[in-house]
């Protein structure tokens, strides 16, 4: 445990207005521990920007900029270009951040441009599987059958009717030097990947699974547990890739049925009502099994 003084010295400090149990703020802290003070960060519009920079307060002890929802990667490209011009790029990490909506939906074009131009930027997508900042609307990264306010369950619906977009593979398709998927449930894995990203020049993509208490509707104490279950079920495979080749996967030590993961979350509770819901859980199990086979997780 950190002393009060050590906590104050952190680069992403306490005192922000994130929810209790927020896995995103936890991940930011872990990432900043590795990146250190020679970092310039951009943030897309979203929870992180709102809860960490209510003027005149800020949780950031590094230079930080928020511009708009969809341009975090483009702003970071500009930051990197300016540093290059000034001859200051060596030794400074440019960190671009966005949520799943700001990354995989509205920000995808700017992100693709940043990848393709291969800016020396580490882009981190905090994936909580919906537009949580605006109150839990579906995004392209919302999992299959999850309830959101714009993919509600009902007599004619089991929730979100499309599987999650394979965003890390979209990153890999750009042949950027490093793509990684990690999780708030595995701090060491996360920090190891950030550390590795720092050693690589060019565009890097890191997607982090960050459970969201109000969006997923669970008790705050389950944030880490849910992030771990997502990995252990096979629903959220953690891996690393260089260019288009996967170079490592996090093996599952004990395969957990998806039901164990789903039942803790209010966003899936409609699946536990009847036989039809049971059939849907089978479909989700198949998504997990397919991941396990595809990535060789066992």
């Amino acid at each position: 445990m950190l002393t009060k003084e050590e906590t104050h010295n952190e680069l992403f400090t306490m005192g922000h207005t994130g929810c209790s149990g927020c896995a995103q703020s936890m991940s930011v802290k872990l990432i900043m521990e590795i990146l250190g003070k020679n970092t310039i960060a951009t943030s897309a519009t979203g929870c992180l920007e709102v809860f960490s920079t209510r003027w005149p307060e800020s949780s950031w002890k590094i230079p930080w900029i928020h511009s708009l929802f969809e341009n975090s990667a483009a702003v970071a490209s500009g930051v990197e270009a300016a540093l290059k011009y000034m001859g200051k790029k060596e030794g400074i990490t440019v960190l671009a951040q966005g949520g799943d909506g700001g990354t995989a939906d509205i920000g995808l074009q700017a992100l693709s441009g940043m990848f393709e131009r291969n800016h020396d930027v580490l882009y981190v997508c905090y994936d909580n599987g919906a537009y949580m900042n605006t109150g839990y609307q579906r995004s392209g990264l919302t999992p299959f059958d999850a309830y959101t306010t714009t993919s509600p369950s009902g007599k004619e619906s089991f929730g979100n009717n499309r599987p999650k977009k394979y965003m890390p593979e979209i990153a890999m398709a750009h042949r950027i030097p490093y793509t990684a998927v990690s999780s708030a449930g595995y701090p060491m894995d996360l920090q190891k990947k950030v550390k590795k990203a720092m050693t690589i020049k060019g565009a890097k993509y890191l997607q982090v699974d960050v459970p969201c208490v109000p969006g997923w509707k669970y008790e705050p104490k389950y944030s880490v547990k849910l992030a771990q279950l997502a990995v252990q079920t096979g629903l959220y495979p953690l891996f690393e890739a260089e260019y288009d080749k996967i170079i490592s996967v996090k093996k599952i030590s004990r395969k957990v049925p998806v039901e164990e993961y789903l039942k803790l979350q209010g966003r899936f509770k409609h699946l536990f009502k009847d036989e039809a819901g049971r059939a849907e859980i089978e479909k989700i199990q198949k998504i997990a099994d397919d991941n396990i086979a595809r990535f060789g997780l066992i």
Partner: protein
Amino acid sequence: MKQVLEGSMAIADGVRMAEPHVISAYPITPQTHIVEHLSQMVADGDLKAEFIMVESEHSAASVVLGASACGVRTYTATAAQGLLYMEEVIYNIAGMRLPVVMTLANRAVSAPINIWNDMQDAMAIRDTGAIMLIAENNQEAYDMHIQAFKIAENRDVMLPVIVNVDGFVLTHTFEVVETIDSIDKVKEYLPPINMEYKLDVENPYSLGTLGEPSVYMESRYNMYNAMKYSAGVITGAAKEFKDMFGRFYGGLTDAYKMDDAQTVIVAMGSVLGTIKDVVDELRETGKKIGVLKVRTFRPFPEEEIVNALKNVKNVIVIEKATCPGKGGILSVEIRDSLFKHKINTVNVNGYTLGLGGRDITPKNIKDLVKRAEKEENVDGEFVGLAQQYL
């Protein structure tokens, strides 16, 4: 040195003299030649800059936003649809008080799709908080770009400056342009950029934070005030330029044969050339007519316009954009300025013409001069419509 330059080349060369550090570019007609020239200058080593060829105008504006926030000098250019696509970012750049300079090659807005000149695109961003200058010819465009950086980077302004140049009419036309030989002289005119608040690991700031209802209005008010203050800075930059380089086009406005004028034509941009020719001709017939050039649309030169027009009988405003559901735009602002100063003796008529590249001919202007004497308070009426297409 006097050279025959395409407008886009003159602009690119003016920008080169200001030595921007980061340039972002995305092609759109009729702006494309400007960034082509700049990219060639970078390729040839004539301009030391990071040239970022982005995937959209939204990112073009976002890249210069990010770079500018680091404290370096930035430039981009666009037109019409590209401007509308980056409008959100322009609001943001202005709100964040970043001194980005960009060229807007004025072009009609879709639909129908039309690549030719009018000023509808510029009017769409008039409330963003960007300073809007309008060049009349290629020489002024060259000079205005150098001035633009000085205005934008003024410590008490810190706002984006958009230099408007008529698409094709200026960007694709060759004219004699006197370029500045000494970059050191430009450096003397335009000191190195020096920003107080920027992204710097030695002195970290959070930029673009959440402004709650308790502070948002004050932030907007500060920007509003900076825009107001910029009027003096724009005039000062023009005068200082005159002292160093000898050329002057007026501050916020410029008067042409206005001394005893009873009729005045007000306009922006390249159409002023045609208008001045017509006025010369009418002057020879004894008509007391003059021209008021609006060089700065934002900040709006209210005082200058009122002073110039208060004793005039008839004012003809050339509108190269339309406000559906209302009428004119420039003429409305002029009428409002006079009304505020309790001047009700001036007959202001706004006429819409030249949309989507339609020629504005000397005959058009002469007809308007005749019409304006018989009409009152015309509010952006369309002129010269082809009846068969209505």
